[in-house]
């Protein structure tokens, strides 16, 4: 099954999981369904989809994800920027900044922990180093240019291939205009570091005046996976050529473990090195920043808003399984993909429905094939109560009216979402200021990520009330601090939004009142009023987005996140596939909903597995075969109703049949063996061991 992934899908993603299709969702004719899937792609809500809706939504998905991805990547790179700057600086100064009086020159090493999981970081760093050095106004000396070579563990199984990759990584880029052919036998061999020295000599001679000779930067990716003995030799060889060869090693360590080198390498190797350690920013602070700036920032409006379920999963996965930037991106992307399963999401951006011009959209909806789509759209837009209570007939009378009402719902949703973001931002600000002022805010043990998720459910009423109550008790002086902070917070927001103006106005008025009242020193009443306003404001604006009309189009809501795709349990899936193959295989149409089939109708591997489960710790293979052949026998009698048997060739036929059963048995056995359910032990002849016990059926 090919799944049309766009070019914005990262090709380095190791696994793309394609879930078992839901039987209820398959198209009308299952006969040539593979062809159909190839033609139309995966479409779970086919019965109420728009004709061509899949393609339209896929385009929208691509646009929406691209927008979100660009934003998240921008945030991540700005979070990484300070560390990248520091590393670049220390690479440039690696050979200038040497302590005098050392007994021998050391090999500069830059160890970046936590960076293997964040390929973007290393790529960013490499491109920064490779770019022609920018003239810095502070430094008189221009930083040296750098040549970069990348080493991966797979290239470095022994010292010969390691040196070959290292040397040829540099030497394959010959000095300008001096590409000379080397003889394979009588020239320096390609794994000889002397070759690199000669090559660098040409560069050094070419460098004029104050320009320092180029530096040689070697990236070792996934450093933990390298063979220790090879790396020891590599460092030894390279360290005997510094500083004539300005080599700098950059190690990408996956663990957040600065002392990996100290734990693994002996002192004799470490003493050759000068290790500078850096850490890629990570942790919950990182996630918080990414989520806040993507989904709770008024400067950026993503096409779809992730719901609390996705946010909760994201937080949980990040804290529990793997704290990597790539993981965050993957989860967000999957949330986007899943969201666009819903046919209604064709309206995410506008009502144009992938038509070339807006006027054609009503025509698309008027198509009789789109009737199911329109009716579902209608029932989603106007809930049953609304239709029932409406005495003036249909709320809209034609397709154009429907489209207009969707546009209205969109404006409404966006406006509410903006207010929610604003109110949430203000709440966080008030919370921070109040903490700074030395108040203890009780009852909110939520982390900010939990608060974000709660705010989307409209579940921060208690916290809002609490903060308002504290605000009411603030003295005039403290209130003016709070107002000042809030004003500067609001001033930073985009000023063309009405939602912001509203809040700004109230804060400004209160501040002015407070200013006027300074002499009378009666801030209490103002604080009282402002506190009440805050409570009201929070209550009014932090609402559950799922109460809005047609929220499903722009919000993933509390639909559960498909966590099985990120973190599947492979063995459990195999076992359940063997137990209930019909949920994974397509069945003939006459058994659409069969839950548990009789053993006759199962595939061979499943029959064998059923018998496997009934056996003891060890299985006698012959008994297993016997029981299997019984099932096959009954299958045969079931399928071919016994009519007049002719004795001619009966024996031959029986022989053939036995061979047939044996072949099927061996094949099924190999299947089970292949997925790791059978363990061969030499202890008992003709027996194999089970590897799975206690399977809940």
């Amino acid at each position, binding site marked *: 099954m090919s799944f049309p992934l766009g070019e914005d899908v990262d090709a380095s993603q190791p696994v793309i999981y394609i879930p078992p299709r839901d039987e209820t969702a398959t198209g009308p004719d299952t006969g040539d369904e593979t062809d159909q899937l190839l033609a139309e792609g995966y479409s779970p809500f086919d019965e109420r989809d728009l004709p061509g809706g899949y393609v339209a939504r896929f385009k929208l998905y691509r646009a929406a994800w691209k927008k979100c991805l660009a934003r998240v990547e921008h945030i991540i790179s700005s979070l990484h920027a300070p560390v990248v700057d520091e590393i670049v600086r220390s690479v440039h100064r690696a050979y200038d900044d040497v302590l005098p009086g050392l007994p021998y020159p050391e090999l500069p090493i830059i160890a970046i922990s936590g960076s293997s999981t964040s390929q973007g970081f290393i790529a960013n760093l490499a491109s920064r180093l490779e770019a022609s050095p920018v003239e810095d106004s502070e430094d008189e000396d221009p930083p040296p240019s750098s040549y970069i070579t990348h080493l991966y563990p797979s290239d470095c199984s022994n010292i010969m291939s390691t040196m070959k990759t290292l040397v040829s990584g540099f030497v394959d880029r010959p000095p300008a205009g001096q590409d000379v052919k080397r003889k394979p036998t009588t020239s320096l*061999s390609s794994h000889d570091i002397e070759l690199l020295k000669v090559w660098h000599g040409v560069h050094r001679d070419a460098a004029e005046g104050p320009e320092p000779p180029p530096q040689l930067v070697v990236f070792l990716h996934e450093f933990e996976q390298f063979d220790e003995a090879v790396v020891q030799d590599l460092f030894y060889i390279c360290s005997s050529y510094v500083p004539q060869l300005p080599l700098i090693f950059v190690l990408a360590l996956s663990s957040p473990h600065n002392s990996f080198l100290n734990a693994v390498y002996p002192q004799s190797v470490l003493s050759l090195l000068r*290790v500078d350690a850096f850490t890629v920013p990570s942790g919950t602070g990182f996630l918080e920043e990414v989520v806040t700036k993507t989904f709770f920032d008024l400067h950026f409006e993503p096409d779809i808003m992730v719901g609390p379920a996705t946010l909760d999963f994201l937080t949980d996965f990040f804290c529990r399984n793997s704290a990597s930037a790539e993981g965050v991106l993957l989860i967000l992307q999957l949330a986007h993909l899943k969201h666009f399963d819903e046919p209604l999401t064709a309206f995410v951006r506008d009502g144009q429905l992938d038509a070339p011009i807006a006027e054609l959209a009503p025509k698309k909806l008027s198509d009789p094939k789109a009737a199911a789509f329109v009716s579902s759209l209608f029932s989603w837009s106007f809930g049953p109560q609304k239709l029932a209570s409406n005495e003036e007939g249909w709320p809209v009378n034609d397709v154009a009216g429907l489209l207009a009402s969707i546009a209205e719902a969109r404006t409404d949703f966006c406006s509410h979402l903006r207010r929610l973001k604003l109110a949430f931002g203000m709440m966080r600000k008030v919370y921070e200021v109040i903490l700074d002022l030395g108040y203890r805010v009780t009852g909110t043990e939520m982390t900010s990520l939990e608060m974000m998720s709660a705010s989307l459910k409209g579940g921060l009423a208690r916290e809002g009330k609490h903060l308002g109550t504290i605000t009411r008790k603030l003295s005039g002086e403290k209130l003016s601090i709070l107002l000042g902070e809030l004003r500067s917070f609001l001033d930073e927001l985009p000023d063309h939004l009405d939602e912001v103006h509203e809040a700004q106005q109230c804060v400004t008025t209160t501040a002015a009142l407070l200013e006027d009242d300074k002499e009378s020193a009666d801030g209490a009443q103002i604080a009282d009023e402002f506190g009440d306003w805050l409570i009201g404001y929070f209550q009014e604006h932090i609402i559950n987005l799922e109460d809005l009309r047609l929220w499903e189009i722009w919000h993933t809501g509390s639909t559960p996140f498909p966590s099985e795709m990120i973190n599947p349990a492979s063995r459990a899936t195999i076992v359940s596939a063997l137990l209930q193959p019909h949920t994974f295989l397509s069945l003939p149409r006459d058994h659409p909903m069969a839950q548990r089939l009789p053993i006759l109708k199962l595939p061979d591997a499943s029959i064998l597995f059923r018998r496997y489960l009934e056996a003891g710790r060890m299985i006698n293979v012959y008994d297993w075969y016997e029981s299997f052949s019984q099932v096959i026998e009954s299958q045969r009698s079931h399928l071919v109703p016994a009519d007049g048997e002719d004795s001619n060739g009966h024996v031959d036929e029986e022989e053939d049949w036995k061979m047939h059963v044996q072949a099927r048995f061996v094949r099924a056995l190999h299947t089970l063996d292949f997925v790791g359910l059978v363990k061969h032990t030499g202890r008992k002849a003709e027996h194999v061991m089970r590897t799975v016990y206690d399977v809940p059926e």
Partner: protein
Amino acid sequence: MMASYLEQLDCLTRDISDSFPGNDALISQLVTLITTCPPTFTYLHDPHTPRATASLVNALTSSLSAIDAKSFAPDDDAVPIIASAQVNAIVSFSHRLFYDTTFNRLAKWRPRWEDGCENWPGGTAGGVRYNDSLDGFLHGLRALQVQLCGAKTEVKSPRKGRGKTRAQDVAKVVKMVLVVDRVERLKESLPGLLVPLTRLAELSRVDIQTIFISQSPWEDIKPPLGAAVDPFHLLVHPPSQEDTLRILTSHFPTDGDLAAAPHAYHPALAQLYAQYANALYSICSPFTRDPHELAYVAAAQWPNFIAPVLEAQKGLSEFHVISEDVRLRLLRVFLPSFTAALEALVPRRMHARAWCRMPDLSEGPSVDEKNVEAVIRSLPTLQKYILLSAFLASSNPPRTDVRMFARSHDTRSKRRRGGGTRRTPQRSASSSAKVSQRLAGPTPFPLDRMNAILATLLEEHDLETRVIGTEFTQPGEYSEMELMRVHTSSAVAELAAAHLLLRVSPPDRLDGPPMYKCGISFDVALALGRDMRVPILDLIWETG
């Protein structure tokens, strides 16, 4: 004329002795060996400072080969042309590299990029390959000797009126020296080369002397069955205190400009540096006597040590002499920080540059154990549970698992405290020889066992925090499912890569579950347990 050559040798010996203090005997021995009639195979065993010795030999042989034999009288046949090459067995890890490096260095050939980085082309016009086999190598040596002699006769030819015989006399005394450093590695990387190198002169029939330098004694390297000739042994003694101090002071990087404004490496400070080195030696020598390590610590400490002096002389154009009183006070204040520096710098928890930038020296860097703890605390939750269960699996004997972890309704109340019933009599019987598990170190365990313990921990301590789907109906089903998830396995692999779990079984063994050992210490595990609210002490079989 003869005298002049010897004088030059004396002068050379003196120079080298100055730059490598404490090796006078060795140097004069080597000079004699190389310039006169040497044994063809010498073994230089230096168990203490092999790096320094290697650079000494390198300096010596290269300056000997730099002596221009032409400047002496042509009839003086005691003046040899010395061609030397020093090859490091680690750097030259293949036959090809070994041969290429040897020839290029013996012939003083510099490959040039424009010529396609060609190696020493050999005596005859190209086309002959000397780097493909040992046989080629031997032929190459002969060709090299011919070339070295030939060059000699060519130079002589304008003045040659006195006949050919003399030229041949000169040709006789081309001496080649091949020094192989880190020979112990030759045994692993190029074992076939070891024996031929020991009898190189015999095999190649040229005047070549082989010198092996190694940290290991010859007995450990010697090929079996007496295939190699016995070497002429030279043993380097560890440097005495006096020598070490001389080495340390020789590393003081001063430019000798007395008129310069005060700076940390002003020549006037050399005397103070000597005193400083003396103090450093007296404190650090019980821990390490390696001159390089001591010099490293000295270099790292010096900028901070001298800072108060420089501060006092700030803005002065010339250096003022420091009084004895100030020196003693300075040293006394600094004494405690030497040990801290030693502890941080010798295992390279920090490099010298970072050390001398540290504001407060007396404390030293944060203790390593604490560091590891902080790192482990920043791990994802699941990895913390894996570490805890690995620790438990490594500390408890497998037979106690059922008692420690079995969770059924009837055993629950019994087991809670102290981990079941202990059979004390049985333990006391073997107690005399029994070593506490904590001292014996972690024991290996199969991954399956750790997974089982992990499931128990997750079920008991983590389940409350999870939102469990309705499809999980049986007790323990959820945790079991967690175990089988992809990210649990990848977390184990990640921890193994970070050496927090140590894989004991070879990675290519497919049969049976992989074996691991726990990589965290008792204290770290306790702290982690406190963090995760897992009562580790209750779950360990042997708390003593």
